C-alpha cells in the first residue's frame, strides 16, 4: 500500500509539473540564472535530490569530467555519454513438495555506460559500441562509485572508436536508399521520483509457498509441484551529457505456481499460473493463493483424464482474455516496436510489420494503444507503467494501430525511416542496451460484445458449418500452445476439457483476416521479462483457426512409483 501511494503521488507530481520538468538547459549549464527562468520548486527538487543522493552526484561528477576531458589522439571526443545505474533489491524463494528449496536476498547495483563518437547522423552505436556493463559499489562512497564509472567510460569510449570504424567499413558495402539518423535528439529531462523499497512480509510469504507446495500430498496423480516468488524493487538512475537527470523506482511482486503430471498415455501436462503486481497490497490473500494452487492441481488432475483432441479442426475459436493477451503480446506487441534493421537492409523495421506502415494489420473495428502513463486499470496496477523511459525520455501514449491501420511504432532514440524521434519507449533490462519495447499495450474496439454473446456467436457459426462443437481457449503456454482448452458443445453448450492440441498458423495474417469480434471484458495481464510489460485485452473471437493434435512424442511413465508419504509431514 505504501509503495502504491508513493508511486501514485510521484506520478501526480510529474503530471502537475508537466512541461515544467522539461528543462532545456543541461544541468551543468543550469546555473542560477537559468533556474530563474524555470519555476523554482521543480528545479529545487532536482537540485535537492541530487544534493542528498551520493550516487547521482558521483554519476554527474564523472560525466562532467568525461564530457570535458575525455579525448584520445586522432579520435574525436564523444558527442554523447550516458550512465544508467540500476539498484536492484530482490527477495526470491522457492518451495517444492512442502519444503523450502531456495531463499535469496540480493542487493546489487548495475551500471551501463554508453559513449557515442561521431554525430547524431552517424555514430558508433554498433556492436561493441553499444555500451559497457559492470557492477557498481553498494556503498555510497564517492571515490569507489566514480572509479567504476571512470573505468567503464574509458572502455566504452575506446570501444566506440573501434565500432564506428567497423560500422563505416560495413556501410561502404551497401547503397543506403533511405538514410536514417543513428540517434534521435531528445529534450533534456529532469525528473526525480521517490526511492522504492520492498515492503512485503517476506517470511509470511515464504511460509505460504511452503504450505501451497505441500498440497501435492492430496493429489497423488500430480508428479511435481513448485511454488516460488520474486519480489523486486528497482531504482533507476540516469544521467546524460545532454543534461538529463532522472531517477525513478518500480516494485514488482511475482508469485508462481508450477505443476506437472503425466497422462496415462505418457503425455506431459504442465500448468504454470502466476500473479504479478506492482504493489504488495495487491498480492492475493493466503486463502486466495491456496485456492489458486488447489485450482491448478484440480485442473491438472482433470487434464490427465481429458480426451486428446481429434486430428484436425478448422472452425471458430474463442480466446478468453488471459489467452488473448498472450496472442496480442506476441503477434502485435512483438511487431509494433520500431527496431532498426541491420545496416544496409532496406526495410523500415524488423518482423512481419516491417513494411506494413499505413497498411491494414487488424480489422477496422480494432485499435491498439500503448500507454505507459496509465498506472492502473480497473484498480489493477500495471507493471508496464513508467514516467521516464530508460533513455531519459518522458513516457507518452502512442496509438500504433488506428482502426486496423498501422500508423505508428513504439520508438526509443534509435530512429527508423519516417520516424525521427523517440516516443518514450526505449526500455532496457538492468545491464542491457535500450530497445523499443511495449509498456501498457491496450486493445480497444469500436464494437464489443459480452463474453456470453461471443460464445453464442461461435456456437451459431458451428451450427451453420455443421460442427458439433467449437473451441474456447482459457490459457496458453509457450509458443501460443493451448494449456486449458475446452470443446464447447453446440447441442447443450457444455464445456469439455481436452488436451494435446496446437494451433496451426496462429499468426498476424490470421489475426487480420479472421478476428471477427472482441469482448467487453478486458483484463490486465502483467507480464514478467527483462523489461516488465502489460497487455490489456478482452476476449477475441476468430471465425476460423486450425486446431491440430500436437505432434510430440509421449514420454514413458515413471519406471517405479513415487516414495510413500510418511504420516507426519515433518519428521525431524
Amino acid at each position: 500500500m505504501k509503495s502504491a501511494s508513493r508511486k501514485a503521488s510521484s506520478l501526480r507530481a510529474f503530471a502537475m509539473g508537466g512541461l515544467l520538468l522539461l528543462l532545456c538547459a543541461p544541468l551543468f549549464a543550469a546555473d542560477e540564472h537559468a533556474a530563474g527562468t524555470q519555476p523554482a520548486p521543480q528545479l529545487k527538487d532536482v537540485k535537492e535530490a541530487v544534493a542528498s543522493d551520493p550516487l547521482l552526484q558521483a554519476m554527474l561528477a564523472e560525466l562532467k569530467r568525461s564530457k570535458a576531458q575525455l579525448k584520445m589522439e586522432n579520435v574525436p571526443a564523444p558527442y554523447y555519454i550516458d550512465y544508467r545505474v540500476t539498484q536492484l533489491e530482490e527477495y526470491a524463494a522457492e518451495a517444492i513438495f512442502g519444503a523450502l528449496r531456495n531463499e535469496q536476498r540480493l542487493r546489487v547495483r548495475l551500471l551501463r555506460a554508453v559513449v557515442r563518437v561521431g554525430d547524431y547522423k552517424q555514430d558508433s552505436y554498433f556492436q561493441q559500441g553499444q555500451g559497457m556493463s559492470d557492477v557498481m559499489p553498494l556503498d555510497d562512497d564517492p571515490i569507489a562509485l566514480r572509479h567504476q564509472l571512470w573505468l567503464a567510460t574509458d572502455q566504452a569510449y575506446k570501444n566506440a572508436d573501434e565500432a564506428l570504424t567497423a560500422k563505416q567499413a560495413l556501410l561502404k558495402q551497401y547503397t543506403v536508399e533511405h538514410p536514417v539518423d543513428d540517434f534521435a535528439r531528445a529534450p533534456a529531462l529532469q525528473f526525480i521520483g521517490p526511492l522504492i523499497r520492498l515492503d512485503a512480509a517476506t517470511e509470511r510469504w515464504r511460509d505460504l509457498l511452503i504450505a501451497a507446495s505441500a498440497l501435492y500430498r492430496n493429489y497423488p496423480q500430480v508428479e511435481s509441484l513448485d511454488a516460488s516468488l520474486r519480489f523486486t524493487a528497482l531504482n533507476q538512475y540516469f544521467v546524460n551529457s545532454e543534461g538529463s537527470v532522472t531517477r525513478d523506482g518500480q516494485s514488482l511482486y511475482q508469485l508462481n505456481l508450477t505443476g506437472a503430471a503425466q497422462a496415462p498415455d505418457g503425455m506431459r501436462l504442465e500448468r504454470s499460473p502466476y500473479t504479478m503486481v506492482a504493489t504488495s497490497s495487491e498480492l492475493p490473500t493466503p486463502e486466495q493463493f491456496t485456492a489458486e494452487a488447489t485450482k491448478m492441481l484440480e485442473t491438472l488432475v482433470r487434464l490427465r483424464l481429458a480426451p486428446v483432441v481429434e486430428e484436425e479442426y478448422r472452425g471458430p475459436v474463442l480466446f478468453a482474455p488471459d489467452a488473448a493477451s498472450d496472442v496480442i503480446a506476441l503477434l502485435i506487441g512483438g511487431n509494433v516496436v520500431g527496431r532498426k534493421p541491420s545496416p544496409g537492409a532496406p526495410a523500415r523495421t524488423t518482423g512481419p510489420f516491417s513494411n506494413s506502415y499505413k497498411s491494414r494489420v487488424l480489422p477496422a473495428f480494432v485499435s491498439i494503444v500503448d500507454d505507459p502513463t496509465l498506472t492502473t486499470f480497473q484498480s489493477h496496477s500495471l507493471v508496464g507503467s513508467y514516467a521516464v523511459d530508460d533513455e531519459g525520455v518522458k513516457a507518452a501514449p502512442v496509438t500504433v494501430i488506428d482502426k486496423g491501420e498501422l500508423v505508428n511504432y513504439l520508438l526509443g532514440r534509435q530512429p527508423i525511416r519516417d520516424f525521427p524521434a523517440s516516443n518514450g519507449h526505449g526500455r532496457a533490462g538492468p545491464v542491457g542496451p535500450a530497445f523499443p519495447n511495449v509498456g501498457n499495450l491496450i486493445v480497444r474496439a469500436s464494437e464489443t460484445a459480452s463474453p456470453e454473446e461471443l460464445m453464442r456467436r461461435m456456437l451459431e457459426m458451428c451450427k451453420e458449418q455443421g460442427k458439433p462443437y467449437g473451441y474456447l481457449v482459457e490459457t496458453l503456454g509457450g509458443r501460443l500452445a493451448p494449456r486449458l482448452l475446452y470443446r464447447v458443445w453446440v447441442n447443450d453448450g457444455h464445456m469439455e476439457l481436452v488436451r494435446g492440441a496446437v494451433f496451426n498458423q496462429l499468426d498476424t495474417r490470421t489475426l487480420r483476416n479472421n478476428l471477427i469480434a472482441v469482448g467487453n471484458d478486458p483484463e490486465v495481464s502483467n507480464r514478467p521479462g527483462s523489461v516488465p510489460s502489460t497487455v490489456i485485452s478482452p476476449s477475441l473471437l476468430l471465425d476460423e483457426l486450425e486446431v491440430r493434435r500436437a505432434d510430440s512424442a509421449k514420454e514413458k511413465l515413471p519406471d517405479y512409483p513415487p516414495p510413500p508419504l510418511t504420516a507426519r509431514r515433518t519428521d525431524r
Partner: protein
Amino acid sequence: MPAMPKTVSGIALRLLLLAGLALSLVSWAAPPAAEQRPSLLLSAMQQELQRATKELAKADPPPYFISYSVYDQQLIVLVGSQGSLMNAFSGSRRDADVRMRVGSSALDNTHGESRPSGLTSGALPIVDERDAIARVLWQLTDREYKRAAPAYLNVKTNAAVRTEEEDKSPDFSQETPLTKVEMGHASFPVDRPAWEEKVRRYSSYFRKYPEVYQSTVILQISQTKMYFTSSEGSALEGPGTLVRLIVQAETRADDGMELLRVESFQAATPDQLPGENEISAKIEKMAADLKALRAAPVAEPFDGPALLSGRAAAVFFHEVLGHRLEGHRQRDENEGQTFTKKVGQQVLPGFLTVVDDPTLEQLNGTPLGGHYDFDEEGVLANRVEIIQNGVLKNFLMSRMPIQNFGKSNGHGRAQPGLMPTGRQGNLIVSSTRTVPDAQLRWKLIEEIKKQGMTYGLYFEDVQGGFTLTGRALPQAFQVLPVIVWRVYADGRPDELVRGVDIVGTPLTALNRIALTGDTPQVFNGICGAESGSVPVSAAAPAMLFSELEVQKRAHSHTRPPILPPPGFESLSWGAPAKASPASEVRP
C-alpha cells in the same frame, strides 16, 4: 583442457561455481564409538536408494550400481573494491547427484563418450523434510534411469560394431564400501558485518595507487557437508570448509599489455586467515610489483638456463606432469598418453620423487587446498607415490580402471554435477639433489656461464598455467609467470621483465632439471578440467633448469585509461612509464 587458473575474476556469482568442496578436518582415525547417528538427510537418502535399487531391479535392463551424493553448502561471498562492497552474497543450497550404471562392471552405460549418461543432478530442499527429499531423489533417479538404460544399449551396439579398444579394462572398479559418519568440526559462526568491514578496508588500500586500475578483494567462505550413499552399502557424511581470501590487482603497460597480480590466502576458518598487517604488506608489494612491471621491458624469446621458484615449479609440475598422470587419460584413445606405457621406466631425473597426498592438511604450516578424506566416488583418499626416484610407479585413479591398474586410489574428483575422473589433490615434489635456497642464484649464474650465455631467467611468481593433453593438438603446456627477472652473468643487477610465457613439451622439459632448492613452496589454486573445478595444491622446491623455453605473450593493444582515476584528477597522467632502476638482487 585441464588448466590451473588461479585467477578468479570479479563477480561473486562466478565464484559460486568455484566454491566446490574441500573436505577437511575429519579424523579418520576416530574410534568407531565416536561415530554418530546418520543425519535425517543421509537416512532419507539411504532409504530412497534402497527403494530405488529394489524397484529398478525389476526393470530391463536393471542398474547394477546407484549412488546418491548430496552437497550441502553454506556460502558467503564478499567482494570489495576501492573501499566499497561490490557484492555481498550469502545463501545455502543442496545439490544432489544421482549416479547410475546399467550393464555390468565389465561394460556399462558410462563407457567411452557415453560417460555423461551416468549422472543426473538437481537441487534438493535445503531443510530436512524427509518426504520432499525422497520425492526429489525419486524424480532424479527415474530421470537418470531413462538416460542410462538407452545409453547402455547404445554402448553395447557400438562395442559390437567397432574395432577392439587397446585398453580392455572394465568400466568400473570393485571397491570396499565405506561407512563413516563424522560430525567433524562443528560449523563456525561468521561475523558477517565485521568481515564486510574488513573486505572494505583491505580493498581501500589500493586507493593509494593510481597506477593500479582495477583491484578486487574477495572473501569466500564455504562450509560444505558431503553426504554419500551407494547401492554397494557405502554411507558417508563429512564436513568440509574452504575459506579463501583472494586479492587481485591489475594494470596495463603503455603498449597495452595487461599486467595482473593475484594473491590468495587459504585457511580452515576465517579467523585463521593472515592478519591485517600481513595482508596490507602483501597489497603494498602487489602495487609496487605492478608499478615496476609497467615500466619493465618486454622479454625476448629465450631458450637457456632458468630458475623456477618453488611456486612456479609447483605449477609447472601440476601442468606438465600431474595432468598427464590422471588415470582416465591412459585409456582414452584421444589422449596423448605421454606416460601410459612408461610404468617402471625413468621419466624424471632420479633425484625427484612425486606423490599426490590428499590426506595432508598442511605442509610446513601452509594449509593445502587439495585435502579431502574421501573422494566423490566415496573412496578413501590415499597417498599415491606416482614417481619414485624418477621412475613412474602409479597413476591418479578414480573408479575407472586402466590396464594394470584395476583399483581406485581415492582420486576420483569432480565438482557437483559432473562425473568424476582421476584428478590431483595435493601434488608434492621432493628432491634429493638439493642446495640451500640461498645458493640457487649462484648455481644459475654458473650454468649461464657454462653455456656461454649473457643471462638466464628467474621466475619468481606465476599466476597459473594450462596444458593440452589431447592427441589432436601438440602436447604442449604453458605456465603463466608474472614476476620474471633477467639474471646476468657479468654481475649486472637483475632486471625485471614482462610478457613471457614458459612453453615446451613435457618429456624434454622435465629432463632439463639440474638440481633443486631445499624448501618446498605451496601453490593453492582451483584446477579446471573435464570433471569441473576442484581445489588443489601443488608443492615443490625451487628448481634450476639447464634449459627452458619462453615465448612472447600475446596481449591486448588497448591503451591505459585516458583520464587519471577519480581522486587523482590533478595527477600528470599519460606520460610514458619510466624504467626504474631494478637493482634488486634475488633471491
